[in-house]
């Protein structure tokens, strides 16, 4: 390995950081990691974050008595605060580390992933923010079930929500274990247990209010960190972007190719599948949609989506600068790479090494602590969404027919939170050695193919019937899972076949239209009494969704 040319070295590097990067879009850190020595600065900063967030949870616990307060923080969060919290919920450690790693390996292709992760936000504002806010109370399932038959609709929507939450959770927990092992030098199992214990403390005591503030603090830390890195990188080239690109081209073994599309994936359909999955997947994420209910009215809900997109857009713009910074400062630097040119600690370390290169141990410790905080904030959001799906949608609305005993409901909510925390630890440990890339691909595709079609059509299509929604959800779910199994990630990488039966990693380009089509055709054929009622509900519902008044 020692005598290989830089290009050959890069080829060794690519599988480690390029292939997992597709999955990073959906929130996974994977690939080989090497445990680093204990990093005292990072641990000290992280402990400060833990103390602050635990205090927030204590403060929030005194304001969280009813299940409504538990799930929606009492509905008193402002649009700006909620926008920051949404950004904190959505910007994962995987996007921070994964997109910089992708730019480090392939150059400008990293921006495609950044764009895909951003573009759901304007659509969220325009299509969903108002109507969803005005119709739902706790989960997006409320919105769908308002018009359609309660039991069947809630069961399929809960299937969609819980599977997205669990898959996202697995990817986050495995990523968390590996990342913390990498950055803090802690054993994997200890890292997974710490994450779950902290999240249980935030959520079980402080509910959505604590989760919101943990996410806001995390968003501010992550945005500050990326701003400092971006400014330091740009300062090194006198704020001349052209000079940054020139130095990157000089350093990178691929030279000028890093400024051309197609080094990472050279197939427009593969890119299209990614763009579709990410944009529409974002619109169907239960933990993100749930945040729209924490604001008092639809105007604040619009502002939430707007501010979220401003924060997220800013983050991704600076991430591109940081990505090229990794090439200039880290590539070929013997402090951060071994003799073969591989990054010390694995492909995900590019951004952390960059922090060290431009800001020394202090900035590196800060960014490591921020990466840890990021995981906590995302896992907390997922846990609230998971517990809402089970105790609000299933228990309170289906089993108790919408009239639960309030004390029992809040107790159940807290128990479900603890169970989810334990489940997260178990899943993290069970899937430790698995290829989490596949698990990370799934939630975006399932969200786009199951949750979004039923939500969008319940808001915008008068002919939708319960039977149509159930059929569409089943088609979306089965086709997503099926095509992922026969796709490259499972069929080739896990099952060991030579070529995949279905060539694309993200099948939502096909499965989402399939779900829409199934809903359309089954709803059209449905002449049941219930279908008539579903359609008759539409006009009142639209009025309520646009005015905030119960029609």
């Amino acid at each position, binding site marked *: 390995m020692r005598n290989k040319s830089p290009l050959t070295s890069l080829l060794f590097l690519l599988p480690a950081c390029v292939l997992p990067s597709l999955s990073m879009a959906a929130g996974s850190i994977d690939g080989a990691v090497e445990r680093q020595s204990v990093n005292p600065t990072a641990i000290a900063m992280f402990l400060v974050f833990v103390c602050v967030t635990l205090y927030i949870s204590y403060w929030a616990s005194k304001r969280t008595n009813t299940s409504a307060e538990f799930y*929606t923080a009492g509905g008193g969060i402002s649009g700006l605060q909620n926008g920051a919290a949404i950004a904190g919920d959505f910007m994962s450690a995987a996007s921070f580390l994964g997109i910089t790693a992708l730019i480090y390996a392939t150059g400008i292709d990293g921006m495609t992933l950044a*764009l895909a992760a951003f573009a759901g936000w304007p659509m969220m*504002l325009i299509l969903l923010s108002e109507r969803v806010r005005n119709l739902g*109370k706790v989960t997006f399932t409320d919105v769908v079930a308002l018009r359609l038959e309660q039991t069947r609709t809630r069961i399929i929507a809960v299937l969609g929500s819980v599977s997205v939450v669990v898959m996202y959770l697995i990817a986050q927990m495995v990523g968390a274990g590996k990342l913390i092992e990498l950055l803090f030098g802690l054993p994997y199992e200890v890292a997974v247990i710490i994450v779950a214990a902290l999240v249980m403390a935030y959520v079980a005591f402080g509910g959505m209010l604590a989760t919101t503030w943990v996410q806001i603090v995390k968003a501010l830390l992550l945005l500050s960190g990326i701003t400092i890195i971006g400014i330091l990188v740009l300062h090194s080239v006198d704020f001349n972007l052209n000079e940054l690109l020139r130095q990157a081209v000089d350093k990178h073994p691929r030279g000028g190719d890093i*400024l051309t*599309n197609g080094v990472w994936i050279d197939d427009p359909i593969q890119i299209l599948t990614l763009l579709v999955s990410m944009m529409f997947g974002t619109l169907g994420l239960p933990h993100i949609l749930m945040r729209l209910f924490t604001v*008092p009215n639809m105007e604040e809900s619009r502002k939430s989506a707007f501010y979220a997109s401003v924060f997220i857009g800013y983050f991704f713009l600076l991430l591109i600068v940081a990505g090229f910074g990794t090439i200039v400062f880290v590539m070929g630097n013997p402090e951060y790479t071994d003799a073969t040119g591989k990054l010390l600690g694995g492909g995900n370390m590019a951004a952390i090494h960059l922090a060290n290169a431009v800001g020394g141990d202090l900035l590196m410790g800060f960014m490591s602590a921020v990466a840890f905080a990021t995981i906590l904030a995302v896992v907390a959001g997922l846990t609230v969404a998971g517990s809402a799906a089970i105790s609000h949608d299933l228990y309170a609305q289906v089993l108790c027919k919408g009239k639960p005993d309030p004390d029992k409901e809040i107790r159940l909510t807290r128990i479900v939170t603890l169970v989810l925390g334990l489940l997260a630890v178990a899943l993290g440990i069970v899937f430790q050695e698995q290829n989490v890339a596949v698990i990370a691909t799934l939630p975006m595709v399932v969200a786009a193919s199951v949750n979004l079609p039923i939500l969008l059509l319940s808001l915008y299509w008068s002919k939708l019937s319960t039977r149509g929604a159930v059929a569409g959800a089943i088609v979306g779910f089965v086709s997503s899972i099926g095509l992922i199994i026969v796709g490259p990630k499972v069929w080739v990488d896990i099952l060991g076949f030579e070529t995949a039966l279905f060539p694309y990693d993200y099948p939502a380009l096909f499965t989402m239209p399939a779900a829409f089509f199934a809903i359309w055709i089954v709803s059209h054929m449905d002449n049941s009494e219930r279908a008539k009622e579903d359609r008759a509900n539409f006009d009142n519902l*639209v009025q309520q969704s646009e005015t*905030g008044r119960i029609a």
Partner: protein
Amino acid sequence: MPTSQDVQTLIRKKNRLRLVMAVIIMALYFGFALGYGPLKELFAEKMADSLIPFGLVYFASLIFSFVIIEMIYLKAAKNLDPKDEEVSHYAK
């Protein structure tokens, strides 16, 4: 209190606004995939004497233009909001 006629007009206007904006956003966004196909050369084209490729400029302009589209929507939607909107649900 607005009449149901007013509300219907409001809903129609808002849906038209949504449709137009969603189509613009999707066209700009999915147009990006062309940079990996028929427009690959254009995306690699360098901007005036620099190394900055068109693809990067397109990316950055998309982020800015989406935010501007959102600002326009915020303003338009606020104008369409019924004036007596109630604060609903748990906020009370």
